[in-house]
C-alpha cells in the first residue's frame, strides 16, 4: 500500500500520461478537453477513472477508452485500469482548459 504522498505522485504521473491521449476527431488531448472527471489511484494496483465524451454518440468512444488504458499500462503494466463513462454532468465547452481553448483557436 502506497503512502498518501506516493498516491498523489502516481496520480500526477497518470494525468501526465493522459495528456498524450488524443480525441481523434477534435485532435486535442482528453485532459485539456475536459473529458476526465476524476482519477483515483487506490494505493495498490487499481486506477479508477471517470470520464465522458464530447457527445454521448461519440463514434470513437471505445478507441479513446482503449487509448487511456493502454497508455497507462505502457508505464504501469501491472495496474488494473477501471474506466467509467458518465454523461452526468454532460460535457460542455466550458470544461475545456484555457490551454485547450488556445490550441483549438477559440
Amino acid at each position, binding site marked *: 500500500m502506497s503512502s498518501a504522498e506516493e498516491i498523489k505522485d502516481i496520480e500526477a504521473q497518470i494525468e501526465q500520461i493522459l495528456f498524450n491521449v488524443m480525441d*481523434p476527431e477534435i*485532435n486535442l488531448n482528453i485532459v485539456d478537453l475536459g473529458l476526465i472527471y476524476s482519477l483515483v489511484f487506490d494505493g495498490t494496483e487499481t486506477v479508477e477513472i471517470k470520464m465522458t465524451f464530447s457527445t454521448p454518440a461519440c463514434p470513437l468512444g471505445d478507441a479513446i477508452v482503449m487509448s487511456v488504458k493502454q497508455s497507462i499500462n505502457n508505464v504501469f503494466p501491472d495496474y488494473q485500469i477501471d474506466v467509467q463513462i458518465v454523461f452526468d454532468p454532460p460535457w*460542455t465547452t466550458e470544461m475545456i482548459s484555457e490551454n485547450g481553448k488556445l490550441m483549438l483557436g477559440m
Partner: protein
Amino acid sequence: MNNLHTDNAPSLAVVIPPFIFGSLSFFMLTILIMLTGSDLLGVYFSGKLLAITHLAVLGWATMIVLGALYQLVPVVFGTGLYSEKLAHVTFGSFSLSIILLVYSFWNSAFSTTLLWAASLMFISLSFFSINILMSTRTGTQNIQSKYVTTAIIWLLLTALLGLLIAFNFKFHYFSQLHLHYLKVHAHLGLVGWFLSLIIGVSSTLIPMFLISHQLEQKNLHYSFYLINGGLSLLTLDWLFLKGTFLIPLYWAVITLGILFYLNFVREAFVKRLRKGLDTGMKYTVLAVVSMLLPVVISIFLLLKYEGDNGFHMRAVTLYGFSIIFVLITPLILGQTYKTLPFIIWLHKYKELVGKYKTPMPKDLYSEVLGKVQFVIYYGAILIFMAALLLQNALLIKTGSYLLLLVAILYNINVFKIIFHKIQTESISA
C-alpha cells in the same frame, strides 16, 4: 461495461463494399455525363438522362448512404445492425439491380430489362429497409431516429412507385402520362428519402463535427412535421386528384420545414467550438446552405408553370440538377471524408492507440487533394448551371471534363483510405 456506441459497429465487410461501389459509380456517372454531352440540354424524360439520374441517386448517393448508415446506426440509434448477412445479400442484389436499371435506361429497354431491374431494385430496397427498421426497434427514439425511419419508408414508397411505372411501360394501366408519375416518384425519392435522411443524419453529425452544444431541438420537430405533412399531402393530391390548386400550399409547408432545419444548422454553426472547417465540413456546410437553390427554382416553376415551354424545361432540368449536384453530391463527397477515414482508422488502430504513436483519421487521406477536388467541383457545378441556362454545348463539355477530374481525385482519396497500411511509431519515454 461502458456500452459504447462503437461496441455495436458492424464489420468492415458490410461497410466498405458499398463505399467502393459508390465511388466507382460516381466515376461512371461522370463518364456517362461526358458521353451524353449536349443531349443533356434536351428533354429530361430520355433514356440517357434517366440512366444518369438513377446512377447518381442510386449507384452513387444511395449506395454510399447504405454503407454509411450501417456504420451510423449505432451512432444515431445506439444499437447494433439487425443482420450482417442481410446486409451482404442487400449489397449483392442492390448492385445488380443498379447495373440492370442503368443498362435498361441507357439502351431504352423500357419494356424488357427494366421490369427485371425495377423488381430486383424493389426487393433490394425492401431488404435494406427491413434491416434498418429492425435495427432501430430497440434503439434510442429521438427526432433524429424518427427522420431516418421516415426516410426509409419514403424510400420504399419511391421504389414501389418506380416498380409500378416500369410495369406500366409494358401493361399500360395508369390513367395519366408517365411524366406525371415520374414527377411523384422523383419527389418521393428526393424530398422523402434524401431530404429526410439528410436532416436526420446531419442533425446528429453537424453538431458533433462542429462541436456545438445546447441546440434548440424544436426546430427539428417543426421541420419533421412540416416536411412530412407537406409531402404526404402533395403526393396524395398528385396521385388521386391529379394536382389541384393547393399544390403551392403544400410546397410552402415543405419550404417552411426546410427553413426550420436551416435555422437549426445556423444555430449549430453560430455556437460551434471548432472555427476552422476541413474539406469534409466545407462541402457539408455549403451543400446545406445551397438547399435554398432548388427551393427557389421550385417556387419559380410553380409561378411560371404556364409560361414559355422551353424555359420551363430548362428550369426543370436545373431543378433536378441542383438537388443532385448542389445538395446531395457535395454532402456525400464531404461526409465521405467525415466517415470513411474514421471507420478505417477505428478498425486498424483501435487496438494500437496508447501503445504506439498512430496517425489520426485525417492523416489517412490527402487533404490537399480534397481541397483541389473541392475547388474544381464547384467550378464544374457553376459551369454546368450556366450551360443548362444558356443551352451551351461547349460549357457542358467543359463541365463534364472537370467533373471527371473530380471523380478521379475523389476515387484516389477513397482508395487511399481503404487500402491504408498500418503505420506506427513507438512512444518514447
